[in-house]
Each structure stands twice: as C-alpha cells, then as structure tokens.
C-alpha cells in the first residue's frame, strides 16, 4: 500500500470520526431542546408554531445550503444577504414597471446567479481573497439596492402568490414551502455526500494543490459554487419579498452573519475540507427554534445574540481543546512507554 492511500485513509477516518461526534452532538442538542421547549414553553409545541418556525428558518436554510459547500472548499461568501436585498429591490422595480410576477421570479434567480458569478470571477479569475471580495460586494450589492429603491417599499404583491408562501398544504398545518425546502436540502445533501462533485468540494478544501494535481478543476468548481450561492440568494430574495409582501432595499440586512454562524455551528470547518450537511440542518433548526422559544417566553432576543456568539466560538473552541487534550495525553503516554 502506498503511503499516499494510507495517509488519505487515516485522514478520512479522522475526519469521519470528528464529523460523527460533532454531528451527533448538535443533532442531539437540537432534539433535546425541541423536547424541553415543547414541555416548558407555552404554545411552542403546537403545529401552528412549528409552521411559523419553518417559515422563519427558510431564508437561513436557503443561504446555508450553498454556504456549506463554499466554506467546505475553504472560501466564504459574505455577500449573500446583500444579494437577497438586491434581488428583492430589483423585483420591486420590475413589478412597478408592469412585468408579470411569473416572469419576475425566474429573472430574480438569474440575477442572483449573475451577482454570484461576479464574486466567482473576482475570486477564481483574478485570484483575490474571497473574504475581501465578498466584503466589497456586500457593500456594493446593498448599496445598489438602495440606488434602486431608496427607502421606499413595494408592497402591492398579488395575494395569490403571497398567500401560497404563507399557506399550508390542504387542511394540514404543514407549510407549502416545506416541500421545496426539503427537496433542495436533499439535492444538496446528495451532491455533497454521494457524488464526485461532493468529493471534489472536500478535496478542494482539504488541500487545493493536491486536489488540482488529482485532476479536480478547483477554480471552475469554486466559480460555479459562487454562481449557485448567488442563485440561492436570488431564490431567497423571491421568498423574502413574497413572505413579507414587501420589496425593500434593507431586506435580509445582516443575515450573512447568522448564516455563517449556523454553518460553523453545524460543524463545518472554517479552514475547509471538513463538514457535513446534517449538522448544518440541525443548527438551522436549533437557532430558529431557540429564537422562537425565547420570543414566546418573553425573553429578550438580545439574549439570543449572546447565545449565538458564544455557540459560534464554542463550536470551534471545543474540538480544538479536545484535540489539544488528546494530544497532551498521547504525548504523556508515549513518554511513559
């Protein structure tokens, strides 16, 4: 057996073990929280409230799906919330000029994809750091949405569409949006965990140079991930506009931080190469349900900002500390032997 396959196997197994523990922990924490909150917080466990939680988590989930892939390749996209704002503002302008909504919705997704392609071009084409580029486009896209709409709002969206977004399936309490959300999550999960594209994403994040030598088109892959991220943000812009029946320049302001927090909390390594979708999905549910429960319990949502921040740091600190302790123990063992 060559040393290459041996080390690869070792790394894989270590990664798998890390994922298994972190994913299990975050999923268990989510389930435990849901159970406890349903027992202790009034109105939390009702079907109607579950529907509200799903509506609340939809935008975070849409953005987190693409962000998971991007962070796994070792990059970041801070411009997603601004892309939501710009597509929403563009929808408002198109609607005001009399374009039918059936045409506006796909155009919004295409616009999002184009905005993502701009990010991708700067990052993979010119070789610029994604952090700096997407901080730039964060300001640029948000600025352009203010240029489009100023501080006005477009609110006369047709009932048929806003009603569908807020509505439930038949007589049940299951929201209509759950089905497309679940389908998208399933597609991303399959792509990341069961296709060569997914393996390429991990390879590009773990060691871009080795991945390139192994035939992974790292730059092209990253470019298309930014396009996908933009398209998801465009879709999120459509959802946001219809859900709140309002196209405004400041829609989804600051949401990028929540999305990054959720992805890291879900066990995706900021250094790339490690992470899995189930953990991210659990983190999305946990954060949204926590927010919802605090609101129902009349606890100030300020408490949530402290909790989110602490969890974010703990998500990285905990595995680091654990491995440091393991390392120290192994070191001592070796010395005694």
């Amino acid at each position, binding site marked *: 057996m060559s040393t290459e396959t041996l080390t690869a196997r070792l790394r894989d197994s270590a990664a798998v073990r890390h994922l298994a523990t972190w994913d299990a922990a975050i999923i268990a924490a989510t389930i435990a929280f849901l159970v406890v909150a349903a027992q202790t917080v009034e109105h939390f466990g009702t079907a109607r409230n579950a529907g509200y939680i799903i509506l609340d988590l939809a935008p975070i989930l849409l953005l987190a799906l693409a962000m998971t892939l991007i962070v796994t390749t070792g990059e970041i996209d801070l411009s997603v919330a601004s892309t939501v704002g710009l597509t929403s503002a563009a929808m408002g302008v198109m609607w005001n000029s009399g374009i039918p909504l059936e045409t506006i919705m796909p155009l919004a997704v295409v616009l999002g994809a184009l905005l993502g392609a701009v990010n991708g071009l700067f990052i993979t084409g010119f070789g610029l750091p994604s952090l*700096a580029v997407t901080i730039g486009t964060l300001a640029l896209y948000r600025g352009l949405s203010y*240029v489009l709409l100023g501080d006005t709002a477009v609110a006369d969206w047709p009932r048929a569409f806003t009603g569908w977004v807020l509505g439930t399936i038949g007589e049940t309490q299951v929201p209509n949006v759950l089905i497309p959300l679940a389908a998208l999550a399933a597609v991303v999960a399959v792509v990341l965990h069961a296709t060569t594209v997914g393996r390429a994403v991990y390879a590009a994040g773990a060691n871009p140079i080795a991945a390139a030598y192994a035939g992974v088109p790292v730059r092209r892959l990253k470019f298309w991930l930014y396009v996908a991220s933009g398209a998801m943000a465009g879709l999120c812009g459509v959802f946001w506009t219809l859900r709140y029946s309002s196209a405004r320049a400041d829609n989804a302001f*600051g949401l990028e931080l929540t999305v990054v927090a959720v992805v890291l909390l879900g066990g995706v390594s900021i250094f790339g190469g490690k992470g899995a979708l189930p953990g991210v999905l659990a983190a999305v549910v946990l954060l949204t349900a926590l927010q919802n429960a605090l609101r129902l319990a009349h606890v100030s949502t300020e408490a949530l*900002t402290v909790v989110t*921040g602490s969890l974010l740091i703990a998500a990285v600190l905990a595995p680091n500390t654990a491995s440091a302790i393991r390392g120290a123990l192994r070191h001592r063992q070796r010395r005694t032997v």
Partner: protein
Amino acid sequence: MTALLKRPSRGTAAGTGSTALDLALRFRALGLLIALAVLVAATAAVNPRFLGLQSVQDMLFAAAITVLLASGMTVVVLTRGIDLSVGSVLGLSAYLTASLLSETGAPVVLALLAGLAIGAACGAANGAIIHFGKVPPLVATLGTLYIVRGLVYFAAGGSRVNASDLPRGFLDFGNGSVLGVPYLFLISLAVLVAVAVFLAGTRAGRDLYALGSNPEGARLVGVRAGRRLMTAYVLCGALAGLGGVLHAARFGTVDASAGHGLELTVVAAVVVGGVAIFGGSGTVLGAGLGALLLAVINNALPVLRIDQFWQQAIVGALILAAIALDRLVGLRAARALRRKGSHVD
C-alpha cells in the same frame, strides 16, 4: 514578504523588485492623496462652500472615529487577522462611559481612560480566544461581535443616555475645536502617528509585519507570536473603546445600537488604504487616508447632487478596485523580480 525583505535588499541590490514594490506601496498613499485632491477640487468647483470652514470641520468630525478605528484595525490585519467586533466594542464603551458620566459627572479624562480599559478588555478576550483557543480571527471576532452587542443591549435595556444628562464639559470636548480642527480629529491624528511610529520603528511593530508575512518563519526566527498577537488585539480593542467615548462626546445621545455595522466601514477604509487583507503589507497612513477618503466621499455626494443612496455602492466598488489593484501591483512586482533573476520567487 515585502516587509521582511525591504531592509536587506535595499542595501545589496538597488533597483530590484523590492524597491519597485516600495514604490508601488508609496504610490498607494500618493494615489489616495491624488484621488482625495481630485475629489475635493471637483466638488469645490461645483460648490465653493465645500471648502468652507463649516464643511471641512464636518468632514473632519465624520472622519475622526473611522480614522481612529482604522489605525487599530490596521495593526490586526497586518498579522493576517481581522477584528469584526469593533463596532460592538465601540457601542459598549460609548454606552458604559456615557452612563458613568451621567450618573457621577466624572471628568473627561476618567471617561477616556474608562473607554480605553473597556475596549482593551474586549480586545484581550479576542486575543485570548484567537491565540490560546486557536480559533480563526474571523470566527472569534464574529462571535464577540454578537456577544458584546448583546451585553450592550443588556446594559441599556431599551433605555438611552441623553445629551442633557451628560456634563457640559464632556459635550464641549466632543464638539469643540482648536483653530478649526476638532479635538476629536486631533486625538485620532495623534493616535495614527503613534501607531505609525510603533509599526515602523519598534521591534514589536516589525514583528507584526513578520507574523503577517510568514507566521511560521517569524516563529522560527524567535518572534513571540502569542505576545504580539495579544498586543495587536488589545490595541485594536482599546482604540475601539476610545472611539466609543469620542462617539458619546460627539453625539451626546447614546443608545444600544451605537456603532452598529461600523466594522464594515473600518475594514473598507483599511482595505482601500492598501493594507493587504492577508497580512504583512500596508501602512497605517494608508488606512488613515482610506478612512478620510470615505468620509470625504460621503460629504461630497450631496454637493455633487448625487443621491445619498449611492454612497454604499461606491464604498463597495472602491473595496473591489483596491484589492484588484493590490493584486495587479503584486503580480507586476513578482514578474519584475523574476526578470531581474532574483533568488526570491
């Protein structure tokens, strides 16, 4: 690389890539000055009152706090770090010092010291999480951005400090000026000069460049990474804390949202000022000029009859242009080095 190689190569091989890069870096400060001059001239041509005392003073007031925070941010970014928590730290310091003053009427100096201490404590927490916890700066300071803002909300609990509660002397300090230059701007300028001297002329300052250029190499030559990183984050936090006191003195009314989103403006100023986001290169003078440019753009837009809503889009475009320019300069310098047959690649 640049910082480490600058000194030796200047003596041994004049005219190689290092000096070309030197020129490019100096060109950045020069380029910013030219951009500033063109912008001011064009705006003044449209409306001469843009150069009036009141207008210039407004710009200096607006630039003061960004310049101050950009000085601290430069120190952190040079080490390959970033501090996203500065806006929240400014808010915490502004609220706590304002309520201290409104309740006790403490002298201005005490308020400044309190602000510095609050900021330094937050910076020390950032530094400890980053160095001892091995948490990447982006994640750590994103976390403290949330936590510190949450603390401000807890402290404020929906209330706010009004200008009428603050001592007269404090507000005079915040809005006063000497020979037309606001006190606040003088403080920022003094800090900027001090940080520039620290970065260029002290061993600790050079170590920060070394850490940003090549962390492993810096450790191998004996740079005490932990101590230096702590210094950088404590300094950045302390300046954000000082900025909070200046904010309170300038505006008088302080609520829990003070400084919200300010981190982006500060990072923008630093990047536009030519400090490389991946560390090791850039000057605090450039960052200060970047902050000044943003403030001038902000004040020039209404004079030029450009919709105020363009402001943020222009900031974004400037950031992209600045990093693209850096990349171009870097590529040209690398090519120049290779042509000269230098051993550096």
